[in-house]
């Protein structure tokens, strides 16, 4: 093998310019694919981390996945219902204390109860529709990162101020309100209540910063006329990989719909998967183009080295050896390109990681999210080697089949 490798290396060394161009083709393919993959996965991870921070790992809501079974169905094998009307009832999770106690027995994480509803916030003649969430501040802080997002005042003050309110900074800006101001919240059923702003938060997510408000649970229960009722339980797990299992068990235990963060963002995960497929297809296409460069140089060498092929065969080199020589030529170019491309990819990724800028809309970002992973390099290099192996194999097969007698007869 060393002899074949030496012959292969000699062939490509004597065609330095063509070799360098082919190596550069592979290097650019590998380099850009590594940089692109680092950016793609970085943004995916950054987005997922933001998402996991922003939403509960498991959320139990006051809904059932299937309609409640009618009593008649438990008695008869076949029943037809006509004109069923929903029972007028207050929605929500009843006996939240009991439900929370049942979950605390086995859930490895923190729990917080919430009551959310729509309300209109009025201040100095302006109205804004808000999603008002009633919380137990201490418990809420154990399941969310809202404390980190506080820009003014304190989230804990909700625990010491009976009618305290925490709103987003953008909502406050729109209303011209600030910490210490008193605002009026009106529920959908017309109940109005005055609240004092005790804090402003900024999550970077515009919809939250403009339309989300927190108040003590009791106050919200009064405003929404739902005494001793909550409509969701948020769970923050110590191990997020257990989210699906915990959701399934909680749903079985309480009978309410429990949604894991993965289920809640199923569409997003699928979108990431499709995006990765598209990315690697593009990367593959780049490397196939690079493969054409290798095919070109190895084909040229086969053409120019027909006489050498004949002499090697006459010396006793079998067809397999001849084929290996030219496949090795393709692979050597591929390996050099993959190494150079890995260095280029690392350089590009490192450079991109230093670029800083800021979006003010939707999601705040201060730098390009780059994720360095050996897998990106391995995938890009394997694709490059596969491409160069094929590019070398096609002309190599032709070389191996050359008839030495034809070449020797044609020699001058």
């Amino acid at each position, binding site marked *: 093998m060393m*002899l074949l490798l030496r*012959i292969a290396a*000699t*062939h490509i*060394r*004597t065609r330095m310019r063509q070799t360098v161009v082919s190596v550069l083709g592979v290097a650019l393919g590998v380099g850009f694919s590594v940089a692109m993959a680092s950016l793609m996965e970085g943004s995916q991870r950054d987005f997922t981390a933001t998402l996991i921070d922003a939403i509960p790992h498991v959320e139990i809501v006051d809904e059932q996945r299937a309609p409640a079974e009618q009593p008649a169905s438990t008695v008869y094998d076949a029943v037809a219902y006509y004109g069923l009307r929903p029972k007028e009832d207050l929605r929500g999770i009843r006996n939240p204390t009991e439900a929370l106690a049942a979950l605390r027995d086995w859930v490895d994480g923190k729990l917080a109860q919430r009551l959310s509803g729509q309300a209109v916030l009025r201040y100095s003649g302006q109205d804004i529709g808000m999603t008002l969430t009633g919380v137990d501040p201490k418990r809420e802080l154990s399941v969310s990162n809202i404390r980190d997002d506080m820009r003014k005042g304190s989230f804990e003050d909700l625990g010491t101020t009976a009618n305290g309110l925490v709103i987003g900074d953008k909502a406050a800006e729109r209303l011209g309100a600030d910490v210490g101001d008193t605002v009026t919240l009106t529920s959908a059923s017309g109940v109005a209540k005055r609240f004092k702003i005790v804090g402003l938060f900024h999550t970077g997510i515009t919809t939250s910063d403009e339309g989300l408000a927190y108040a003590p649970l009791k106050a919200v229960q009064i405003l929404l006329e739902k005494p001793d009722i909550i409509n969701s339980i948020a769970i923050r797990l110590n191990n997020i990989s257990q989210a699906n299992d915990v959701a399934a068990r909680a749903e079985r235990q309480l009978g309410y719909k429990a949604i894991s963060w993965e289920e809640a963002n199923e569409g997003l995960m699928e979108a990431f998967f499709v995006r990765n497929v598209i990315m690697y297809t593009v990367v593959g296409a780049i490397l196939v183009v690079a493969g054409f460069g290798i095919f070109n140089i190895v084909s040229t060498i086969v053409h120019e080295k027909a*006489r*050498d092929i*004949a*002499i*090697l*065969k*006459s*010396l*006793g*080199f*079998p*067809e*397999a*050896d001849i084929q290996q020589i030219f496949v090795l030529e393709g692979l050597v170019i591929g390996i050099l390109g993959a190494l150079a491309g890995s260095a280029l990819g690392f350089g590009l990724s490192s450079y991109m990681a230093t670029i800083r800028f800021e979006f003010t809309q939707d999601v705040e970002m201060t730098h390009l999210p780059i994720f360095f992973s050996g897998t990106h390099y391995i995938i890009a290099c394997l694709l490059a080697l596969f491409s160069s192996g094929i590019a070398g194999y096609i002309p190599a097969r032709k070389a191996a089949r050359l008839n*030495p*007698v034809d070449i*020797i*007869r044609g*020699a*001058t």
Partner: protein
Amino acid sequence: MSLPAEVPVEAAATPVLLEARDLTRILPAVVPVTLVKDVSFKIGRSEFVAITGPSGSGKSSLLYLLGLLDRPTSGKVFIGGARTDDLSPAEMAHMRLEKLGFVFQFHFLLPEFTTLENVMIPMQKLGKLSARNQLDHATTLLADLGLEDFLHRRPAQLSGGQRQRVAVARALANSPDLILADEPTGSLDSVATEQVFDSLRKIVDRQKTTVVAVTHDLELAARMERRIHLVDGRIDWDRQQA
């Protein structure tokens, strides 16, 4: 110019190394071309045989069949008593590597490699000698052929005669039983021709290797021990030469 006396060959005087039995090679084409037709002979060990004949008489085609570079349409080639028609391409390649050596009209050295490397390549492929012994053996072969001062030169830095002698050294690299030479002096001047012929002579005399050489040069052919003359792909005559 008087040629040496010639006597017909009854049978190989020494143990048979190479035998052609009813060899025929027809090139398939719209009108098939017969290159070699019903050629049979036996060549013993350490014989120095010339194959002569006019252009297109099938000399080189016969040599390629004997050297297992081509397969006959019919007939058989035996080397060292072993049939070769049932060998796979890989087995034929191995037999060429181990038992045969080729010298062509054009040296066919690998241009990127030095003299020494060109001679060592067949040894490295066969792998019977250690790296050290390969180097020693190649150096000795080249020194025997008067090329000790050109070990590290590339073919482009050598004269035609020197290149052809390197090709002879390479053919001898694996100490083959049989050297097949196709017009080995065809592209050389008279001085170089003498040098190459002397090299081949030495091989036969010293190493008891059999040499079969195709040549147009009748004077050179006359100095070999046996001459097989082809006309239109058939043996016209086959004689020992005094």
